[in-house]
């Protein structure tokens, strides 16, 4: 078991390393960078002092070196002008646009992103499992049909539009406030009970919107899995020997159908994270989504790079957790791994 975890951890580290190379490559694709653009602007404006400062920054962050060296310095595998200080050393770089360290700019956004995604993940599971069980045990009933139709609609509606419309009606009908993750009066305040309550009430709509697509897909798959299991002889035997229906359902077939469900977290997570970025943009949630878009637009490379790495790390880590849960849940995988 420990060997398996270690092996998984090594794979995860390698994956993240590859992703970092890919991310850096993509960010470096557009010609020029933030500072050269800025220097050109300043030259046009004739501000010699600022040009000197920008050129100093270029040297300080090694932007005058070849791209592969820049990459190694960013990751922290090669000493830069300031020695080893990259992602591995916990230095997330400098945001040129804000003229502050990236760590300071993203700040709260990181764990608010975590909260939003976690809420969506929990929502998907809490909603999908009971509905799927109902739908599979009451096949061809009215409820099943309604769920199926709703599921298809959930797959087809673009999340951003749903966010926009729900935002409007949630405010009109239920008085849930528009946009953000907490009321404006709490900005910059320490976290206390009132602020957390405000956060919770703001979380409702985003969670619903982000989770809906995933829930629809989850219900469809879970229903199919459960139907397969219910048709198998062991279920019939369990019923025949007089096991109460609930027990005959939950004890064996349900556990069997949970298996692909957990394995599916790996597929679900990238979608949730994607969805949360998009929905954050529409609802102007203070997560990393809007920051990423802005950083990409202004070629603020360390900022964009860090956020992309954070988002990718979130998914890779989630996949690791789902793998481990699967091992714990399924003795066949556990025994095979030994």
């Amino acid at each position: 078991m420990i060997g398996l975890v270690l092996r998984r951890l090594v794979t995860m580290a390698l994956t993240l390393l590859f992703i970092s190379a890919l991310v850096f490559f993509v960010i470096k694709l557009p010609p020029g960078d933030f500072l050269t653009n800025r220097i050109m602007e300043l030259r046009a404006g004739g501000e010699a002092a600022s040009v000197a400062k920008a050129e100093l920054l270029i040297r300080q962050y090694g932007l005058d070196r070849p791209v592969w060296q820049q990459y190694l310095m960013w990751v922290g595998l090669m000493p830069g002008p300031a020695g080893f200080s990259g992602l591995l050393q916990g230095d997330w770089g400098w945001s040129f646009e804000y003229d502050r360290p990236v760590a300071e700019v993203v700040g709260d956004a990181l764990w608010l992103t975590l909260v939003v995604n976690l809420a969506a993940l929990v929502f998907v599971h809490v909603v999908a499992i009971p509905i799927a069980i109902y739908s599979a045990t009451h096949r061809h009933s009215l409820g099943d049909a309604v769920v199926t139709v709703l599921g298809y609609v959930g797959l087809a509606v673009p999340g951003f539009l749903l966010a926009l419309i729900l935002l409007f009606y949630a405010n009109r009908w239920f008085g849930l406030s528009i946009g953000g993750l907490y009321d404006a009066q709490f900005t910059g305040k320490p976290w206390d009970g009132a602020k957390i309550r405000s956060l919770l009430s703001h979380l409702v709509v985003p969670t619903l919107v982000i989770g809906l697509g995933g829930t629809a897909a989850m219900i469809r798959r879970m229903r199919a899995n459960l139907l397969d299991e219910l048709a198998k002889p062991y279920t019939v035997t369990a019923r025949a020997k007089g096991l109460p229906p609930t027990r005959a359902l939950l004890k064996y077939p349900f556990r069997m159908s949970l298996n692909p469900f957990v394995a599916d977290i790996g597929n679900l997570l990238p979608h949730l994270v994607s969805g949360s970025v998009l929905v954050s943009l529409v609802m102007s949630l203070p997560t990393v989504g809007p920051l990423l878009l802005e950083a990409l637009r202004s070629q603020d490379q360390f900022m964009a790079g860090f956020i992309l790495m954070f988002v990718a790390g979130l998914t890779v880590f989630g996949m690791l957790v789902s793998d481990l849960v699967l091992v714990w849940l399924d003795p066949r995988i556990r025994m095979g791994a030994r």
Partner: protein
Amino acid sequence: MSDRIRDPAHFVDPAPFDPEAAREGSREALSARRLFLRRFLRHRMAVAAGLILLALYATVPFVEWLAPYGQARRNRDFLYAPPQAVHLFHQGRFVGPYTYPYRAALDLETFRRDYVTDRTRPQPLRFLCRGDAYAWLGLIASDRHLVCPPEGGTLFLLGTDRLGRDILSRMIYGARISLVIGLVGVAISFALGLLFGGLAGYFGGWVDAAVQRLIELVRALPELPLWLALSAALPPNWSPLWIFFGITLILGLLDWPGLARAVRGKLLALREEDFVAAAELMGASPVRVIARHLIPNFMSHLIASATLSIPGMILGETALSFLGLGLRPPVTSWGVLLNEAQNLAAVQLYPWLLVPVLPVLVTVLAFNFLGDGLRDAADPYH
């Protein structure tokens, strides 16, 4: 029994026995393709979805002719005009399809445009008529339309946007881009998936391991942030048409892992079959074995998977354009249209700006149903 005794010809047939004829009409005699078709036709929803998609794609070459207005035509007197109704009876008398003229009146208190309908003057629509000039497919100049606004009147069936452009016409033009982008994108991802999945599944060993790692890598990345990054990387001085190709390429480049996995799985199973060993023993090259013996065996399954990944592409383009990082005007797609409905004012004051979401919904649902039907038909044991 009594029948047979009365009709001895049934027992002894003078004609020589023909095994082909004896099998005629039985299940085995049907080719795989006809079996597939038969199973597919049993899926009512999938067939209906397929027909809807056929109808949608049939409009693609003729959008200029179908749209009542040109896509860039601005009507300065009709900004944010609400949808106009088409009537048939005027004061109890049948006059054929017509609209009532309306005029904007600025409400000086709220600064909103209120449209006042004049119900005394019916203006009949014109059909197969001359309207805004266009170059059909960019080649043939014409000004013929299926339906035109009445003489001196307007025809805004779905209202107009902030520049007074007809939403319906722009939606019809947008269909061309949005529908084509899904097909082209899936073609790219199909080719890549076939290539990588084929290599991994056929050769196995380290090739398989390498491709598997690559697939895991691409799948671990959340699509949207990567799409954002890649489309931000498209040079800003590209023409809108090149941007269109760039976006299509991006959508296709990130979508292949799912297909590659399907191909690999099927190949691994098929590779062990006897007919593959026979072909190899007869000296067939790997390319021939893959292309001639393996691919036909799981093509239907692949097409079903590809069909199911088209909606993701259409939604992806819509999302990117909605954020302003996708297609750029004057290229019009459903996403570009929705980009204009991005604020709460649109939901509250001009809800007709949200209508372009309907074709997205219909197309995505139709592709999903069609894909499900194809998959069930391709895989009868599942």
